[in-house]
């Protein structure tokens, strides 16, 4: 099967704009610090990665000792951003570590306005707060829902379904 993504050269997989990187099944992944995240996305934007294809999260609560490149602090949450350069037909993935104690990350809305809904979805599902987002509200779950469903400690099928303004049981 052909590689869906452009294969980056082997030697490229070291430092990308000062951030450690790795190859995951042939796909280039960058691991910036939380403080450098916004700058890195901006530098990648200047490199031609003009399209933010996807922004989502992951909760690694049971895997706090997972394998990451040297120099990356493991945190509970990760925000995963897939960027695309249409000119060179290449993709790059940015994985930022977001600590549980302060689950906040700067929004990249100013660079990629298309992430408006994706950041809302990530907030809705993981509770990661995107500072600077124009309208951070729940998007898929009801507004008054408690908890963030895709967190690993959110019970599966154990939460009684509750709706806003539902009539009391007869």
């Amino acid at each position: 099967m052909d590689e869906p993504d452009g294969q980056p050269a082997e030697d490229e997989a070291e430092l990308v704009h000062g951030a450690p990187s790795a190859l995951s099944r042939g796909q280039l992944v960058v691991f910036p610090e939380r403080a450098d995240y916004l700058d890195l996305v901006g530098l990648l934007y200047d490199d031609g990665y003009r399209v933010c294809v996807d922004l989502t999260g992951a909760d690694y609560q049971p895997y706090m000792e997972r394998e990451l490149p040297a120099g990356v602090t493991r945190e509970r949450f990760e925000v995963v951003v897939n960027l695309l350069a249409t000119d060179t037909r290449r993709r790059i993935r940015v994985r930022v570590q977001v600590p549980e104690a302060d689950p906040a990350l700067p929004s990249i809305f100013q660079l990629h306005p298309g992430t408006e809904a994706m950041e809302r979805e990530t907030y809705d599902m993981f509770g990661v707060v995107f500072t600077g987002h124009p309208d951070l509200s729940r998007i898929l779950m009801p507004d008054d829902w408690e908890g963030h469903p895709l967190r690993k400690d959110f019970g599966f099928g154990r939460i009684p379904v509750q709706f806003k303004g539902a009539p009391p049981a007869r």
Partner: protein
Amino acid sequence: MTVAETSEGDQELLPKSRTAGVEYLREVGAVLRIPHLPEGIEEVPTDHDTMIINMGPQHPSTHGVLRVMMELQGETVLRCKPVMGYLHTGMEKTGEELTYLQGPTNTTRMDYISPLFNELVFSLATEKLLDIELPPRATWIRMLMCELNRMSSQVVWLATNGMDLGAVSMMIYGFREREMILAFFEKVTGLRMNHNYIRPGGVAVDLPEGWRDDVLKILEVFPQRLDEYDTLLTGQPIWQERTQGVGVITTEECLALGVTGPILRSTGMPWDLRRDQPYLYYDQVDFDVIVGSYGDTFDRYAIRLNEIRESIKIIHQILDKMPQGDYRVQDKKVTPPPRARIDESMEALIHHFKIFTEGFRVPEGEVYVAVESPRGELGCYMVSDGSSKPYRMHIRGPSFVNLQALPHMIRGALIADAVAVISTIDPIMGEVDR
């Protein structure tokens, strides 16, 4: 009391008086959601000149349960905001509880108009993690089924878009043609929709006897029918009046908003993952990427119509190239043994039992795989922790992202055009809400 009752919660469109400065500019800029606003935003009406109404979630032209909050001045849409989540069923959470073999039954229900693409992207992601090579016939079968599915999906779009704009006969024609393809799907997969046919490791069953004749029959009928659509719609003044210059968007705006698929191509940008980042065997077939030039609704109509013609072209080539051989990979750890072997071999029985109860284990890692669905880039981000269930499975639905362009495309349009614009985005709510 009354305020509390009529409140829409956090997602409410705020009154103008409570929306200040920059934020207000952005909202006026069509919630343009693009920071650098176009100059010359016309004079802003005050709150009492405008009216906020809801379209949907129960509205025939919202293609499901999309709800659009619109601020109207007379019949002109000023601001609007798509509200979704009415069909949210937690499929990504469910995906974490299903084995890799069960996974496609879940993802296939996301984009229910083109279910095979969802199965395909899930399977490709799993196979990339497993690092297995498929037999050629499996890949060609996948391409055949996906192209047929693309045709049926575009035909459904033509049908519903026709009905939204008042060409009700198109509705009947479109679904008539789709039925031919669905009948073929039923013959191959056993189901008309939600097939669970493309699975990690190949496809569920080989093509049935006589499949080539069935496909040729479809390929014979479709071009005539497409010419009929041309007569019915393309040159018709009313149709042109309703679609030309409606919902215009530019390439830069599309890229900034992450919009892909026919909407991006309608702006003149030839971006099609089948050609630009080939997957399956798309690099071995010859087809054209259809682009528009104005980025309006008519261009998107023409693109979708002509993509059916390109799919026909591709399927003819697939028929010529379809090899003999296995329809799934012969790796006993991934593929269940043939039914006949179970009666005679203890090993086969064990493998069968293990694969269907526990599932096969997938090495640790994470991948993002994208395919070109009829609506745009359909992606799957998958994380495996080495067990038999995905640790995290995220589907990047093209409808979800494309829908975010709605406020921009709809701004300043009449409410009747709003229907045309919603329709031209082709949102499938199952995929938007997942």
